[in-house]
């Protein structure tokens, strides 16, 4: 049981974010003590940039989880979006057309997911799981084992560029975090989304257009995945059919470490941001400390469980 005097006077969400920030700080202090390379500006900027990609995927997912849903298809959406958009950029020599393609694919996938969940009432796990396989198959067929690579340098600024010495993706992440938090906590739509997860009956009875909002969150998740695909293309300068498979579980883990509950109604974008940072820091730490590859899954698993446990302790202390 962790007691911090004065903490009880803060609003509940702020307390939890504070707890998680504390966990992040502990991790950071630990890593700086163990590795001299950790605390350099370059390393920290790298970590932030790596976390940004993870955050882009997890941001839309946070909204989905708020409604007690899940989106297992984000990895495959990124793969298909990146492959098709990448091909479009090369063939049409237009980054804007490519961007429109990626966002279009993401949005379309989100729309389909949303319709399956809200109109056909297919459980989110199943609907997005099925979608994952369909999208992955489409990506394999489309790419036929090839790689698409070599994009214009102007476009690549999205992944590689710097604005005022800060990597571009990090700036975009900050903006997305701000906009997303305002949306979730200060707009009517955002509040409705939280209510759908927290108390679906009350939401329905108070006139919230549940079906439309559900479709909205999945579309937002798809758009976020489409955007992540663009950042991926810009950063990696390439795309292949299988890039998505290793991205989905970390994205979900980031949302859960950030304090969201799969039962809905709980979670913030700030929390997800910290979750993404924690996961990225763990990998960074393992590389810097040369942790043997065999032990890396264990370390990651333990950190995930510990982070969530800590967060829950903080929650339970208050109640």
């Amino acid at each position, binding site marked *: 049981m962790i007691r911090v005097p004065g903490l009880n006077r803060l609003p509940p969400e702020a307390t939890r974010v504070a707890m998680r920030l504390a966990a992040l700080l502990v991790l950071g202090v630990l890593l700086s003590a163990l*590795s*001299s*390379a*950790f605390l*350099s500006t*370059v*390393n920290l900027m*790298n970590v932030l940039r*790596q976390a940004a*990609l993870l955050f882009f995927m997890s941001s839309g997912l946070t909204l989905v989880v708020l409604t007690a849903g899940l989106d297992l298809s984000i990895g495959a959406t990124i793969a298909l979006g990146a492959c098709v958009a990448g*091909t479009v950029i090369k*063939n049409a020599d237009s980054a804007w057309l490519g961007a429109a393609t990626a966002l279009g694919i993401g949005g379309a996938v989100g729309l389909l997911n949303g319709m399956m969940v809200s109109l056909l009432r297919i459980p989110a796990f199943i609907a997005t799981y099925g979608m994952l396989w369909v999208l992955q198959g*489409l990506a*394999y*067929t*489309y790419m*036929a*084992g*090839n*790689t698409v*690579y070599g994009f214009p340098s102007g476009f690549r600024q999205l992944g*590689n560029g710097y604005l005022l010495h800060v990597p571009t993706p990090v700036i975009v992440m900050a903006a997305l975090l701000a906009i997303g938090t305002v949306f979730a906590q200060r707009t009517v739509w955002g509040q409705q989304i939280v209510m759908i997860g927290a108390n679906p009956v009350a939401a329905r009875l108070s006139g919230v257009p549940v079906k439309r909002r559900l479709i909205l969150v999945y579309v937002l998740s798809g758009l976020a995945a489409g955007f992540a695909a663009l950042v*991926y293309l810009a*950063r*990696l*300068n*390439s795309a*292949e*059919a*299988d*890039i998505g*498979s*290793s991205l989905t579980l970390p994205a979900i883990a980031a949302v859960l470490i950030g304090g969201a509950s799969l039962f809905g109604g709980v979670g913030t974008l700030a929390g997800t941001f910290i979750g993404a940072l924690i996961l990225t820091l763990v*990998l*960074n730490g*393992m*590389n*810097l400390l*040369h942790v043997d*590859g*065999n032990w*890396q899954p264990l370390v990651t698993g333990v950190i995930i469980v510990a982070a969530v446990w800590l967060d829950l302790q903080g929650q339970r202390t208050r109640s």
Partner: protein
Amino acid sequence: MTRVSTMALALVLGAFAAHSAVADGEKIAVLTKNQTNPFFQAERVGAAKAAESMHASVLQYVPTQADSISEQLSQIDDVITKKADAIVIAPVDYKAIVPGIQKINAAKIPAVNVTDRSSGGDFVSFIGADDYTIAKKTAAALLKAIGGKGEVIVLEGVRGTATAQDRLRGFKEALAEFPDVRLVASQPANYQRLQAMQVMENLLQANPNVAGVLAANDTMAIGAMDALSEAGSKALITGINGSKEAIDAIKSGKMLASGDYNGFVQGCVGAMIALRYLRHEEVPKQVTQPTVVITKDNLAPYDVPLDGRQCPSWDQVPKS
């Protein structure tokens, strides 16, 4: 856009693939490990081209879950049920595949082993290259190029796979022969580009003066390459696969070399041997691909996209 229509066509045809248009001609089942590694795509294309030129056809079997041993064993069952004329197989796990090969032998279907040598069962022939030797030769090329001294980093493949282990072994043995070179880090990036880039970024923080990077495949090499050039590092880097992208990188000087581990020829020869055996022609018991390290000086024959490549003629195949 041709890609879209190709995809649509493939989907429609795929759903009705039961009755292909080939009237006569043997049906060879080609079993490869996964959809994701371009090596196996090249192998599939090679086998298809060889079969086509010999008036036969191939049925491609790839596990839907990459590198799934169980699924490959199930596919063997299904291929036996379907009574394919011959089987060309790149086993996911060279030890666990043995019961499957025994079933193929019991069903009297001729089998050709490609890529990873199975530890049991009867085969008409084995065509392969040696992960270990390729890795060792490629590493030696890099270590020579950095002058035999300095710091080196290894980017490993997926823990638990035979290729990753053999390549790591090859790297380590090459390193042992250059005592003034220090291996400062060996981390897995699972053959993936994004992971390689992030791992390389991280490792550069602890080891900024690295002189050389040995990547267990081209995809990781290219991911690491980007991280290195961003950090302004002058480290030399090698990969394995000889993929088109790697060739381009070698041409432009960004990559030093890539070990030739291209499945195209293995696929060609595997199918050719299967068909020749069915047609009662002579076949060698083993075909070992020469280990070539592709550098700036010898990349011309590799600089051709997959669709444009031709299978070697039978006389060109090195028979041992």
